[in-house]
């Protein structure tokens, strides 16, 4: 089960980011959200939605979805961290397991661009 994003429907309103932040911080905040509409290249109107999952970063774009692995050594031949400690910040998506509404980003999206994929 995971979060599925239709970037063509998305209007970049940030409601998902707020709802996700609320799930993490029990208040209105954005900082801990694991789902973030892309806003960095504003002048180009470049858009998409980023989703942080365990070990991967999903970039949902209108032309398709790209998955970047994170937290692993790019070169597997190199010896790497044997004991990485969790950051306890901006944690990966847990599908809002403790929320009565289920995944909050799905619930709040005004344009139904986010859904749960089985």
């Amino acid at each position, binding site marked *: 089960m995971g979060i599925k994003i239709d970037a063509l429907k998305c*209007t970049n309103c940030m409601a998902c980011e707020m709802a996700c932040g609320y799930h993490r911080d029990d208040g209105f905040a954005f900082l801990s959200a694991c789902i973030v509409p892309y806003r960095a*290249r504003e002048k180009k109107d470049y858009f998409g939605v980023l989703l942080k999952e365990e070990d991967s970063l999903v970039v949902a*774009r209108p032309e398709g979805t790209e998955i970047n692995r994170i937290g692993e050594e790019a070169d597997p031949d190199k010896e790497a961290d044997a004991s990485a400690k969790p950051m306890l910040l901006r944690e990966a998506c847990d599908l809002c397991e403790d929320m009565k509404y289920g995944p909050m980003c799905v619930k709040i999206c*005004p344009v139904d661009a986010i859904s749960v994929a089985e």
Partner: protein
Amino acid sequence: MEYLSNDKILVVDLAKGDVEEEELSEELVAERIGGAGVNARLYKEYADDDPIVLGVGLLTGSMYPASAASVLTAKSPVTGKLCHCPVTLKVGIEIKYAGFDYIVIKGRSDKPVYLWIHDGVADIADAADVWGKDVWETTDAWRKGVGDDLLQTMVIGPAGEKGLDCAQVCYNYWTGPDRFGIGKLFGQRNLKGMAFRGMGLLEAAEPEDFVDEAFELLEAVKGNAFMSKKGLGPICAALGEADAEEWLSPVVHRHSADYFTPYATNTFAFIDEDPAAVTETAKPEPGVLISDIPALLAFKKLGLSALDAAKAMQACARQGVDPMAAATAGEKGGKTSIDDILSQVAATTEPAAMEGNGVFSPWCPRKPIFGDFGASDTDAWWERRQAVAAIFGIQPVFAVMCPQLTEESMISLSNIGGELELDQETLDTVIGDIAG
């Protein structure tokens, strides 16, 4: 004020180059609610300095649908009245998350400065390097300097620096609702603009109840037929400009919404890139974000193609000129070619004719869009609707679109989230006071 708030009023003295902080008292909120209501009170308190006051709505940046806006309050050089100009896109919420509820700006700096507001810290920063630069160059410079692509800005361009009545305060790179010449007031004070970024947290008194009620409201909002549409085209059609949607369509790249605003009230037009392109364009500056419906229609009326109208809009955004003023000047000067109009933009001086009471911006269409509000006197209804939006922080265009966002629901959510006891009578009093 403990909830839905940072509990902070910032007073900036540009002449002395210092800042002071005050607490936002619960009594003030109970009496004046928020946004334009409190702004007007703060203006009065500092009236001798004829300040510019920036304030967030009581619900701004919350999970109340369309709680996207903040509001700039100042004595307009255009109308001579105390006016309330919405702060839209994602700039409105960033102010709240940057740590202040209200910012009173008084005095005149003796050199160009801008305010860098971040995480409850207010810095008066040097703007000498961007003075003379246009809006785009300025936002780019500030974002690069701070190292953050999401910095939200209010900026004046050359028009504001020259102190023209047509000067607008722009948001990030785009023209906004300022028909009041607030850009001129910035320029007169040597204030190039403000930059906001913050990672604050707003607490609600009863967060779960707040979210329950907000989600219920959202479901009702999503039931509207207009939710199947996006962007400026359908709005123009709903306003009786049936052919505008088709006229605009050749340049439409996509539509975006202000913070948590269910309808996307902004349309991005591509000028030198194929609007159908979905992959990232290599062009650094391919087009313009348009939110100004009356100005867009005014350019259309001059006989421009949508592409040329977008070019004119882009030029206004860079220069910091109210596009409605530019379109008006073009019409008066009998300009019909895009080259004439583009050269007209930088030469515009006069503001656009003001519609309504001169207190709220006619950037927002002055009649119901899509929805039926059952109002007999549309003008009075519009002024009241704008006042309510400016008090609670609701996106003004969506406010005239969506009847489910009732005054009652705003009062109710404010009380749940803010541990307040606001009632209709208080709201009526504040509206009566600010609506002129």
